[in-house]
């Protein structure tokens, strides 16, 4: 069966009403059964367990099980809830935050968790030489202080309303001060966290096995004895293996296999709308992309619904160039852009290309969706006078030669937790991955104001204005949002994924085998 959750926007994203989710740990009629091993298959390698630096799709569930953060993204929402911090408050102008820590928590090795661990962790994150990915969302923090053993205080260098979401960053999980003081290479293979599971064995080429941590702070959880992460690099083999019942959960399902998996007996295919997208990068500091008419003409040459059907097998939604998907709290109602090659042709002529234009679009081959979107756009845009030569290339070549250098290529991004993180990732003049040379001071200023505003109505207005600017200038063509797809066997209760694809709540999963 398919659980299709496609509610548009609002606070609840991904997972609609709880009634549609009989398996959720907190809303179930049956009482969970204890015991059993959950086998999860994944197709990318768990290359490291260094919580402060990892970034692989299959690494996230591992650290989610091994570690806890101060705060944690809530199931189905882009908001932060308590984890190792039970509560937190900000001062008036959102420049100082105080977090109250949970008492009686211990690390897997038995040492107690205190504010010293938090301070050590955040100091490591903020150390540029350490290179933690979490620094990009936490660099507003000026200093961390331990007020007492169970209270810490963050002093910010600018007002920042979303700090609780930033402290929920997957790489900002709390590591013990002792581990950070010792050989930091041990972080790679000897994780010592406060999460619901402990590492038993780690074979990056095959199976990573975690077992229940009896002293996890959530009373009575986790339910499982163990979780095994099984690596299947070949997607077809992974699907076949899942369907033959050898594993309980398939972490990521390919669009091509989704219908079959959904139809298969004893299998639950879960589809969660998310803000993942392929974006067409066009460098605007050089012709021909410096002309907004050309960008708009191309935008009109893409049949977005057809793209969703062809490339995503319908498992996604058309997007109309807004970098914020409807799941974001402050996303505006984006006007549709109809597929109109004739109008596009006219606009292209107006831009100075009456006879059409020849372009070369680069697409890396990993993941394959980049190439597929590129080829589809090439075909769709042809009637409008775009003669696009798709140059697909191996990912490493792309990284070496095209990424953030080329003037027309396909990028691919996952969903960010906040509007601010999204804008600061790509679109502001100082964005981490600024790649379009679209510099707009007005936009920058709006983003700056948005992050320090706590009033929701005010923020909504600011972000709406920012989105209008973005849609007016079309820095990227974003043609569709891709759903997050996962699957589990019937006997697996409580398996959910979050649109962010970073938090998994496996401590609430249990096996309902007859």
């Amino acid at each position, binding site marked *: 069966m398919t659980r299709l959750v496609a509610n548009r926007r609002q606070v609840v994203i991904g997972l609609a009403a709880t009634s549609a989710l009989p398996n959720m740990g907190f809303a179930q009629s049956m009482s969970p059964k204890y015991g059993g091993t959950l086998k999860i298959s994944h197709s990318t*390698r768990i*290359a*490291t367990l*260094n919580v402060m*630096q990892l*970034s692989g799709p299959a690494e996230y569930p591992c650290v989610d099980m091994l570690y806890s953060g101060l705060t944690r993204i809530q199931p189905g929402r882009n908001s932060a809830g308590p984890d190792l911090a039970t509560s937190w408050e900000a001062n008036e102008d959102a420049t100082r935050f105080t977090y109250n820590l949970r008492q009686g928590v211990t690390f897997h090795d038995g040492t107690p968790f205190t504010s010293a661990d938090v301070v050590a962790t955040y100091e490591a994150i903020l150390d*540029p*030489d*350490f*290179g*933690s*990915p979490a*620094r*990009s969302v936490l660099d507003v923090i000026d200093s961390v202080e331990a007020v007492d053993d169970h209270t810490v205080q963050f002093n910010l260098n600018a007002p920042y309303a979303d700090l609780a979401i930033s402290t929920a960053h997957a790489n900002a999980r709390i590591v013990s001060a002792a581990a950070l003081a010792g050989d930091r*290479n041990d972080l*790679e*293979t000897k994780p010592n966290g406060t999460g619901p599971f402990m590492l038993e064995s780690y*074979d*990056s*080429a*095959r199976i990573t096995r975690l077992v229940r941590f009896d002293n996890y702070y959530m009373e009575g959880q986790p339910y499982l004895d163990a979780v095994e992460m*099984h*690596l*299947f*690099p*070949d997607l*077809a*083999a*992974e*699907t*076949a*293996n899942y*369907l*033959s019942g*050898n594993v309980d959960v398939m972490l990521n399902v390919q669009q091509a296999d989704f219908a*079959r998996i959904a139809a*298969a007996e004893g299998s639950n295919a879960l589809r969660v709308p998310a803000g993942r997208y392929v974006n067409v990068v066009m460098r605007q500091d050089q012709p021909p992309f410096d002309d907004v008419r050309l960008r708009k003409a191309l935008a009109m040459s893409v049949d977005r619904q057809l793209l969703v059907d062809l490339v995503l097998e319908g498992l996604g939604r058309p997007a109309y160039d807004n970098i914020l998907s409807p799941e974001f709290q402050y996303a505006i109602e984006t006007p549709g852009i109809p597929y109109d090659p004739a109008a596009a042709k006219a606009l292209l002529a107006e831009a100075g290309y009456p006879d059409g234009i020849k372009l070369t679009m680069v697409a890396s081959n990993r993941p394959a969706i980049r190439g597929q979107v590129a080829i589809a756009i090439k075909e769709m845009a042809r009637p409008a006078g775009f003669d696009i030569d798709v140059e697909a290339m191996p*990912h*490493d*070549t792309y*990284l*070496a*030669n095209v*990424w953030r250098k080329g003037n027309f290529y396909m*990028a691919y991004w996952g969903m960010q937790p906040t509007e601010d993180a999204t804008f600061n990732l790509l679109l502001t003049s100082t964005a*981490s991955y600024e790649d379009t040379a679209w510099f707009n001071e007005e936009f920058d200023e709006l983003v700056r104001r948005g992050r320090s505003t706590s009033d929701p109505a005010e923020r909504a207005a600011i972000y709406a204005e920012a989105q209008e600017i973005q849609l007016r200038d079309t820095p990227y063509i974003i043609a569709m949002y891709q759903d997050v797809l996962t699957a589990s066997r019937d006997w697996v209760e409580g398996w959910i994924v979050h649109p962010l694809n970073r938090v998994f709540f496996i401590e609430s999963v249990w096996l309902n085998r007859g």
Partner: protein
Amino acid sequence: MSPAYFLRRLLAVALVLWIVTIAVFAITMVLPGNAAIMILGEYATPDQVAAMEIRLGLNRPAAIQYLEWLFNLLQGDFGMSLRLSLPVSDVVGSAFRNSALLAATALVAVTVVAVPVGMLTAVKRGTKADLGISLVAYVGTAMPEFVTATLLLVIFAAPGNPLLPAGGFIPPGESVAGFFNHVILPAGALGLILTAHIARQVRSEMSDVLASDYIRAARLKGLRERRVIWGHALPNSLAPAVAVISLDIGYLLGGIIVVEEIFAWPGLGRLLILALENRDLPVIQAITLLLAMVYALSNLLSDLVIAALDPRVRYE
């Protein structure tokens, strides 16, 4: 065979491997792109890239780096994997064990099937059985592993009622039955092309032997056909068969790359692809060197076996 001969051969292997170290090092030196970006990928933050660049420290002269690497190598230290943050010897060691299991299974299966089939078809040369088997062998040699593997998956691991698992690996130490269950398809995909090739080569060698004067002489001595085949032809075809098999080991070592990738076999081949994609230079160097060493040593071993089988080369 004299110890001097053995020593000379061993020296030759060492020389070959030394040349391989130069080639491998040269190749990894000229890999394009900023190593740090390649290792970390496009979602890495600039901080991460900067930290990695410091860690790599690849800014010294190549010759110094080579000598340092070689020096460490001779002490058994292959360095740290850049992507997996583990000692290369650990990562490559376990992958090598797994690959060896797969390759050895495939090789044994291939030998057990191909050599008798090749001999049979040579003896039955020109018959329908020969024609049929030769045809299959020809088609077999023309199927790249990824096609064979894919077709095997479609046929034997189709969802619904899969006869065999679609991939994965169970160490024989854990479950022997599980190991064999999982090894059949990858070994089959790996072995088809080799079986076909070796059967064809053995058939041709055996045909040459059967056409030789001493076989004619044996027949004209009135010996029964069974004795001619088993007593005279077979001992003469074994040495060439061993030579063919040892040469095909090189092909086998290439074939594991694709097959392991498809069947989720945690061996050297898959590790290599990962290492190449991530510019994990120490791992690439170690794997290439290891595969070359295996190949060179298997050739040496085959020479020793041939010397044992054929008295003419024994005292060389």
